[in-house]
């Protein structure tokens, strides 16, 4: 389990409008590239220092590639990060206010308390 890395993906993609578009249109390409090039980047370092050990599990990688926000919730990704990024990608397709947000919640109706642990 690498909840931290899931969160790092959601956090860093959300902050970059170009990456948000790539993730919406080409999720497999974006997730593969991100894991290879960005997963081990230390966020406040601009030189060569990087981590060496961060990688997704197969289940995590598949959930990201599949835009599967229910699976990400189950895996303990931070719900605020997931929601924020997915609204950025898909709210634009709304035909009425809050349509995507409500459908997002409805797809999660099978979850009951206690929710998956989000502690990293």
């Amino acid at each position, binding site marked *: 389990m690498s909840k931290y890395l899931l*969160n*790092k993906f959601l956090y860093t993609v959300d902050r970059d409008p170009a990456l948000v578009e790539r993730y919406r249109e080409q999720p497999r390409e974006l997730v593969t590239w991100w894991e290879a090039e960005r997963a081990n980047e230390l966020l406040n370092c601009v030189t060569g220092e990087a981590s060496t050990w961060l990688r997704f599990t197969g289940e995590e990688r598949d959930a990201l590639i599949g835009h599967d926000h229910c699976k990400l919730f189950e895996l303990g990704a*931070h719900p*605020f990060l997931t*929601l924020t990024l997915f609204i950025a990608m898909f709210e634009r397709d709304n035909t009425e206010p809050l349509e995507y947000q409500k459908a997002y*919640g409805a797809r999660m109706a099978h979850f009951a308390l206690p929710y998956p642990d989000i502690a990293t």
Partner: protein
Amino acid sequence: MASIVAVIASTHHPFYYRASTSTGADRPPFADEWVRKITAFRETLTRANPDVLVMVGSDHFHQLWLDNMPQFLVGKAPFYDANWHNEEREFGLPRMLLKGQEDLSAHILRAGLDAGFDLAFSNELRIDHSVTCPIITLRPEADLPIVPIYTNIFAPPLPRPARFVKLGEAIRTIIQEWPSHLRVAVIGTGHLSLELGGPRQFGPHGPDPEFDRRAVEWIATGDLDNCLREVTLDSLHAPGNATHGFMDFMLMMGVAGAGAKADYVDTLDLFHTMEAYFTWYPNGVPA
């Protein structure tokens, strides 16, 4: 010594700015009532005539991140840029620039450390909607210097509710001991019941109206005993998965003081989450 002329606790609803400024078909049906309530709430700060605002909020994974996460952080900078790209994108919030009250920041940091709170600090802090929403609602001129104080209500492990209350009590004492003639208002924002990214989000009301009713009663009456008895890190999952933001309300109850009844209380039942507004005047209601 400085005086605390108002203590204000509020929800921070990022949709207010867009709702209140939209017109025609874009203006939601609840906007006019919301603006009326905010305008009345704003008057409770205006009449206290503050010089400085201490702003308690919580960064929503903007500048503070899991590789280096403080529990409590005080901004100490001459200026604070405000609002982030994803807040413009999702909520239409404007970019802002606020002045800082650096000498009060320094005083809070020194006195807080000496009082047993290992406060982190930031000399370059871009603040987010947990601070700018109450600026927009309560002081839209954005003309007063601020001291931002961030709490971690977002990334577990979190401090327990009693720690938020203790920090609020300490902040009150520390400000009152600040060697200054300035008039300080302490403003903090949090949440009542709230669900984000889960099955109970964006309902017709907040996810737990009964929790909201009891929470408003605790805050309005300063009932820290019952609040602390019933609210734990575990219990806050039940009303909604983002309800740990209620601990910022508990911090503000600590600033106001145990048993202190709020001088102004108002609520607004909205979709997704309930709005709630409280003002205390520690030195009596201004004339």
